[in-house]
């Protein structure tokens, strides 16, 4: 394995990503969990940058760390869990089965990805840098991929109506 800057960056970001994810699900206070989630989003955006996906990395910061986190915090404050102890659950045989199955799924996926892709991608192609930019994305999205793009607006519209229907006080 080559030991260059990118490898070092990748492993440090990967460790941070997994570490923050574990911290997120083990914290008692939901706000602390949410803050670790932000750290996780940040490291993932760093990983996107390593893959030369600049635009996605920026969007990850803008939309996820900016907008979606606000929503998370609102939900936490909306629910306002006074006593986090009641959320604590016992470790039953059901959970143990779930954990074992998750580990199995994890092993299955990692083996598949490791062996299935081995030898497929040796070096990142020169086009990769170009593909990740907003210019390239724009020139593809609004011409060749315009149909899924228009459909995205229908999805957003349905979500807007759904949000208003479910969350508006005094709906008539």
């Amino acid at each position, binding site marked *: 394995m080559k030991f260059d800057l990118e490898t070092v960056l990748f492993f440090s970001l990967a460790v941070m990503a997994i570490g923050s994810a574990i911290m997120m699900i083990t914290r008692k206070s939901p706000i602390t969990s949410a803050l670790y989630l932000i750290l996780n989003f940040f490291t993932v955006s760093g990983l996107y940058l390593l893959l*030369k996906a600049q635009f996605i990395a920026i*969007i990850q910061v803008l939309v996820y760390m900016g*907008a979606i986190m606000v929503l998370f915090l609102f939900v936490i404050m909306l629910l306002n869990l006074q006593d986090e102890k009641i959320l604590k659950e016992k470790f039953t045989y059901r959970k143990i089965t779930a954990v074992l199955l998750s580990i199995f799924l994890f092993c299955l996926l990692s083996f598949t990805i490791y062996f299935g892709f081995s030898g497929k991608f040796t070096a990142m192609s020169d086009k990769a840098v170009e593909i990740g930019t*907003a*210019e390239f994305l*724009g020139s593809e999205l609004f011409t060749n991929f315009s149909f899924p793009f228009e459909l995205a*607006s229908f999805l957003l519209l349905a979500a*807007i109506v759904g949000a208003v229907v479910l*969350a508006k006080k005094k709906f008539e």
Partner: protein
Amino acid sequence: MLESYIPIIIILIISVLFAVVNVNLSSLLGPSRPNKEKLSTYESGIEPVGTAHERFSVKFYMVAVLFILFDIEVVFLYPWAVSFIGLDQLKMMYSFISVSVFIIILLVGYIYVIRKGALNWD
């Protein structure tokens, strides 16, 4: 390739250092002589009642959801703005039309939200 990110990394490091150093420095250098009155919550001289963790109204949530949905709309416009000038004539017109349709559909959503009074703070 990675060299072009060095300015960003430097700024990141500086900002993290700035935050960490400033917070810790003031607590290290400043005198710390706490007493009961000082440690209590400051409520303009009135005795504090209950916790600061009040339940928020669902109205905030409504605004936040609508913000995200329209935020995503804007995200789609960014690559359009960047790429528009580089396209040839035909594709330029085409991308203009497809973005217009996109915006018009979401405009219906906007009209709906306004007319329903979903953003009214009543």
